[in-house]
């Protein structure tokens, strides 16, 4: 296909140097993401999935290789790639409304447009009643909704999520997964989502990229063709889960779960 992928990672590697020791966190990663795709990166700790995400976000430059967005090399963080952190990364001194407006305000959007954008995204994530609350007054699930709304309000084309629901309880996690999928289907977002839960990956993704540690690298890709909404208790879902689980287990017997 001639269509340009939104994201194109070519031969990316990352080596960290601590004094005299060098640690290879990621080796020769190749990944293409098309607009509108939902891609999950999965693997045990140390497989380089967060490193890859941070390189795409522009927080860290790759040691070798190139990461391209719309064919242009990624140089530093920018609003077109919004990041959602596991620990939220909200500004504690700003209210829900101000947190969501932080990006558009920083980019000098006119006041009236800013206000309209903020109200729209506060409503989109269902936090109208808490618009003037500070982050410390919110539950974990609500904080993560603010974090998602904040990147969407800032016109992110691709949302990078680093184990975003990892710190939430099971019920809240399921809710937010449903809500994220609904948002994704409604807005035509592109999502690159890091997780260590096989079930979460299969439930959410069009494509699951399996990564392995020592050194971190991409092992294989699985296209998930199950129709949505997916039922985690269905035999078809479990078949995929078994297959993916076996793939993870074959390389590090104890860690995949």
């Amino acid at each position, binding site marked *: 296909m001639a269509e340009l992928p939104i994201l194109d990672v070519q031969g990316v590697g990352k080596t960290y140097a601590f004094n005299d020791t060098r640690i290879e966190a990621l080796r020769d990663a190749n990944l293409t993401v098309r607009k509108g795709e939902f891609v999950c990166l999965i693997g045990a700790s140390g497989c380089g999935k967060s490193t890859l995400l941070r390189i795409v*976000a*522009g*927080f860290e430059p790759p040691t070798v290789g190139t990461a391209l967005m719309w064919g242009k090399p990624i140089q*530093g*963080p*920018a*609003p077109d*790639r*919004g*990041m959602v*952190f596991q*620990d939220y*990364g*909200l*500004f*504690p*001194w*700003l*209210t829900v409304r101000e947190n969501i407006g*932080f*990006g558009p305000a*920083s*980019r000098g959007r006119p006041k009236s447009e800013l206000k309209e954008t903020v109200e729209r995204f506060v409503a*989109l*994530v*269902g*936090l109208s*009643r*808490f618009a003037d*609350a*500070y*982050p*410390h*007054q*919110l*539950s974990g*699930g*609500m904080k993560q*909704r603010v974090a998602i709304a*904040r*990147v969407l309000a*800032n016109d992110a084309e691709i949302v990078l999520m680093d184990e975003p629901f990892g710190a939430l309880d099971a019920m*809240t996690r399921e*809710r937010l997964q449903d*809500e994220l999928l*609904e*948002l994704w289907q409604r807005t035509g977002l592109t999502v690159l989502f890091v997780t260590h839960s096989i079930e979460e990956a299969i439930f959410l993704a069009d494509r699951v990229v399996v990564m392995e540690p020592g050194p971190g690298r991409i092992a294989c890709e699985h296209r998930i063709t199950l129709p949505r909404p997916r039922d985690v208790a269905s035999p078809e879902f479990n078949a995929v889960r078994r297959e993916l689980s076996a793939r993870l287990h074959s390389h590090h017997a104890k860690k995949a779960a």
Partner: protein
Amino acid sequence: MSDATVPNTGALAAPSPRLGGFRLLARLKSFGLALIVPLLLLLGWHLAVKAGMTRLIPSPGEVAEYMVDFAVGGIWDDAFSATLLQHLVASASRVYGGFALAALVAVPLGLLIGRVKLVSQLLDPFIQLMRPIPVTAWLPLSMILFGLGPKSAFFLVFLGAFYPILLNTVFGVKSVEPRLFEAASMLGCRGNAQFFKVVLPASLPSIFTGLRLGLGLAWFVIVVGEMTGVPQGLGAVIMDGRTLSRTELVICGMIVIGIAGFLSDRLVVLLMNRLLRWSPLHHG
């Protein structure tokens, strides 16, 4: 998305009137508890003087009587009668003047030291070297530099308040969560814009800690500062009281400084709780 998740947000619930009554009772109780130790101390002091344990210290009653004379006059009518206000104003103007100047210099300097490596390399070693020198040790030098009088007191107060404000500001800047810089930059706030939108608000709690410590030290230092031969000020009153062997005057000066220091701290706390209402640690 909808918000069916039940939030555990006690801070958002409006207090019911019943709860308000309880809160008043709790406040009265904590107020009463806080009074116990000072009252016992007063009682002990009173009994000790009554029992004739010392001739040099007046009883609490005598001090109270003198305090009234010191404040409004009409009892002893000596050189110190009804002069409390002018001494208090003299001291407070030096305390707040020195403190304000210290804050004005120390906060921006601390922000720079915490954020700009070159400034830190340039100034940090020097500051660490100067810091251990007690303010009182500066007294002779400040008398030479600024002469006998209010300027010298002003300088010592400035010096006393300067270090805690500076060090806490630097600490605040250095302990901003790196995550917040990442969040700001991916949202399009980069470079110098982060200084005002991230660094300053994030280090505000530490800056306030520094301001509180600094103001406390300013009141602490004022007595020393006013030993340098200024005619007015609470420190001068205490020094005069000592020279004239008028212990009741010394104690009155001590009490006024204590109360003034306490009240000005409350003022900072009030301002702090207003500006930091986003912080769960600043609700008391």
